[in-house]
């Protein structure tokens, strides 16, 4: 796979709803204690008409994605891929009842020299989550690192 060729490619597109039960489940699984995630009265007292999602809730989109297919599509060797970093930008908080659409694109694909010689491939993905009105609500950037084959 040569460098940069995939930039601009849409990796996948997924639609999903932000659900109360999933918010509750995600809050518990991440040891998050703010009651705005689990108690509708607390959410209302904070000024919202339903439960607020935790900050990394969009990760639950994993349920609707085929991770193997996307790794194959990018020509990556799964056993050598690690996630280097992830960044979320929040344009507004998500709450139960939001219907989201997520479009994930390749925004960077390059080779870099590895720390111990050889080279690694660095693929940067950007996902834009828009709500039912088409307004962007969250942007996520993932940096994937494929280590070179060991000699």
């Amino acid at each position: 796979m040569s460098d940069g060729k995939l930039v601009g490619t849409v990796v996948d597109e997924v639609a999903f709803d932000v659900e109360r039960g999933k918010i509750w489940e995600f809050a518990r699984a991440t040891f998050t204690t703010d009651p705005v995630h689990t108690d509708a009265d607390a959410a209302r007292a904070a000024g919202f008409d339903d439960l607020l999602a935790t900050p990394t809730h969009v990760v639950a989109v994993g349920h609707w994605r085929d991770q193997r297919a996307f790794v194959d599509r990018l020509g990556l060797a799964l056993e050598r891929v690690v996630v280097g970093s992830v960044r979320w930008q929040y344009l507004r908080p998500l709450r139960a009842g939001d219907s989201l659409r997520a479009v994930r694109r390749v925004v960077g694909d390059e080779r870099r020299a590895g720390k111990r010689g050889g080279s690694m491939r660095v693929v940067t993905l950007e996902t834009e989550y828009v709500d039912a009105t088409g307004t962007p609500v969250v942007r996520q950037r993932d940096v994937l690192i494929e280590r070179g084959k060991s000699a």
Partner: protein
Amino acid sequence: MSQPIRARRPVRAAVGDTHPAREIGPLTQTDIVRFAGAGGDFNPLHHDPEFVRSSGFPGVISMGQLQAGILAGWLSDWLGVEHLREFEVRFVAPVFLGDVLRLSGEIVGIVAIDGPGPGPADGPDAESAVAPAAESVAEIALSVRRGDDTVVRASAKAVVASS
């Protein structure tokens, strides 16, 4: 989206402020499976010891998104999820079953917001009975440590009240 009626005010904060550290663990297989169910990551590296052995890891490792979610939740418990503007994590080292994780963070910068900021969509609410405190964006440096090792480094931006 309907406008907040009585929104929580941003937390008052200054450079150097911290929040009580949270300790999680020792991390169990149940913790990892619960997160797999919540987030939908069913890579066998995180729950299948046979598969883990065949792939050369010394033991089951947690998904980075678990550490990211735990740290992000600790941050939003502190500053309010609706006030977060950005959260970025760097995965420095893998996390294994039995690890005890310590979450901490500190406000390292405060930057004034230009203009009215992310208040009501139709401009500043001049009728508001209580004048809101000046809102700024705090920069927060965060980490997840296991003993003396850092396993996650993170940074974030959140709206705070600065005066």
